[in-house]
């Protein structure tokens, strides 16, 4: 895509989110800067603990109680979300910004029937009557591919299979036709064939409702299938941002390169996979300078002392690495 005439829907500036734990502060997101354009499909990718979920869930402020947003701004449609009160944010959640989780039971109440749960956002945000809302809910359930939606709307969540629960959650989250849909590893817990169905559904809904998609995943296959632009995170920092074709064909950051090469499919069978030595660092005491330097094959003295900033290297392609030139 790389459409720089597109409007910015969401602008994250200098965001710092730390978690307070007994052992100290976990610097989960450290100085994140990111722009998401209207109508695009943006993927935030990285391994466990890199901070991608924290970054994404900071937007609707759905973080655990020990999270502290220390600084920064999240500008959504000209409003700084971080400056809103809880009740003001509640109005935006569900109506303008919707979230789909890996575990559908985070959104579905096990003791309520599915129909009313899917209808609830309409009643809450648009003040429709329950009757109208339920009718819409049943339509929405049908739209997301649940067979016999009227019958199923009277079921409880436990009667749904994993894939169906996920669809129900998507139905619930899209009834209000939000502008931004945040999907946090929505298919990680699903079987591969169901995953393909759910991803297809998300793509279709995105086109149909014209919504902007922020997808979080650790699976590069999903990144390739689903997104226009990609942001790679490592140890709480955004290390590379670019459009999806550039990221795959010409990754500039050594970590991105390593990850893409790790992904199994690229090699012929039974040859050694390339691997990144070592393991991700502790976020309580991350390495000085570039956080990736202890594992980086190209690290030099500058990398150990000076933290690289995200610079735009070519149109739409940003990287935080002192040595990106030598990686070309």
């Amino acid at each position, binding site marked *: 895509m790389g459409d720089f005439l597109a409007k910015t829907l969401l602008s994250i500036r200098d965001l710092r989110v730390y978690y307070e734990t007994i052992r100290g502060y976990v610097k989960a997101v450290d100085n994140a800067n990111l722009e998401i354009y209207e109508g695009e499909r943006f993927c935030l990718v990285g391994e466990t603990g890199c901070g991608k979920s924290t970054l994404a869930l900071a937007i609707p402020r759905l973080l655990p109680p020990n999270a502290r947003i220390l600084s920064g701004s999240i500008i959504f449609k000209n409003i700084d979300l971080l400056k809103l009160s809880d009740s003001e944010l509640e109005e935006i959640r569900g109506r303008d910004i919707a979230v789909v989780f890996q575990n559908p039971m985070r959104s579905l109440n096990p003791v309520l029937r599915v129909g009313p749960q899917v209808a609830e956002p309409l009643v809450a945000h648009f003040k429709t009557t329950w009757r109208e809302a339920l009718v819409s809910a049943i339509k929405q359930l049908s739209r997301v591919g649940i067979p016999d939606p009227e019958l199923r709307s009277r079921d409880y969540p436990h009667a749904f299979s994993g894939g169906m629960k996920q669809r129900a959650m998507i139905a619930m989250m899209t009834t209000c036709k939000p502008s931004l849909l945040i999907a946090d590893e929505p298919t990680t817990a699903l079987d591969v064939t169901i995953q*393909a169905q759910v991803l297809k559904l998300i793509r279709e809904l995105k086109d149909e409702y014209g919504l902007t998609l922020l997808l979080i995943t650790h699976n590069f296959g999903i990144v390739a299938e689903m997104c226009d632009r990609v942001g790679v995170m490592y140890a709480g920092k955004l290390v590379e941002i670019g459009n999806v074709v550039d990221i795959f064909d010409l990754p500039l950051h050594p970590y991105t390169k390593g*990850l893409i090469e790790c992904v199994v499919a690229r090699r012929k069978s039974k040859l050694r996979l390339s691997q990144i030595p070592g393991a991700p660092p502790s976020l309580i005491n991350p390495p000085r300078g570039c956080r990736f330097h202890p594992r980086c094959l190209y690290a030099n003295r500058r990398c150990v002392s000076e933290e690289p900033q995200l610079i735009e290297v070519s149109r739409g392609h940003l990287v935080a690495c002192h040595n990106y030139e030598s990686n070309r």
Partner: protein
Amino acid sequence: MRLLEVRDLKKYFEFKKGILSKPQYIRAVDGVSFSVDKGTTLGVVGESGSGKSTLGLTILRLIEPTSGTILFNGRDVMRLSNEGLKWFRRSTGIVFQDPYSSLNPRMRVKEILERPLKIHTDYDEKTCSEVIVKTLEEVGLSEEHLMRYPHELSGGQQQRVAIARAIILRPLLVVLDEPTSSLDVSVQAQILNLLLDLQSKHELTYIFITHDLLTARHISDYIMVMYAGKVVEYSTTREIFTNPKHPYTVSLLSSIPIPDPKLRSRKRIEVTGEPPSPLNPPKGCRFHPRCPYAIEICKLKEPELLKYSKEHIVACHRASELSFTELLTDIISFFT
């Protein structure tokens, strides 16, 4: 040389809804037959409910089979004496998906690795220590990890300990049940490489259970695709990826997200619906409700596993008439 031969293996779990109702059966593994040659890797691929994990546990008699024959190194596993069973345990190993729950939280690494030695050998303390340290080094750990508890290790390190435990007695066969699924991508590659190294070094035979066809492709010589407790296709890895014959295999291949954005609008076979309930599988071919190619006979008669070509068997009524290579050209080209 055939190391393992399995014939018509079945594992049914009894499921009682109430005291008075008739018992129902979960047919987790419903008549599976295959063999594995020494030094090779068989990839067992399937989604949830396919029975692949149950198969792994049943082969090792960690779950008692309901019926069927298992021949390991020529011996009937079901008829082993106590000594025979001990030999069987010594000659086999297992690695689980979640490395943390497969290690005793109250045992240090040293103890975890000592136990197999203490049970099966009469090594003295010194020899034990030597063997343990050597094995740790083989899996990429070191002496410093000896006194650690599992919760003090990272996921990758925990899995290495689990692998060390499985191979410390130089077994013949190792069953690996999704050993990399819980690990980060960069660590997955390390562990897979480790497994390949260990295999060539010690002539190990692997049964590698996974839902991820890509990982299976990387490590397996042969791939067996399971669906709803039955084998639907079996062939060499190459053949499975270049000439799959079963619609389910094709749908699996089609559904894998390919890490190449240029292939995103490739042709696919779309599969609707979900895997069936193991309590009440569909009549006839278990895949027919979801199969875009199903015809009348598929609803009525269960297809037999028939030989399609040398080293390629399929259970599909339409195997001889359907060809998917055209549909899969994009994917196939990606892999070659």
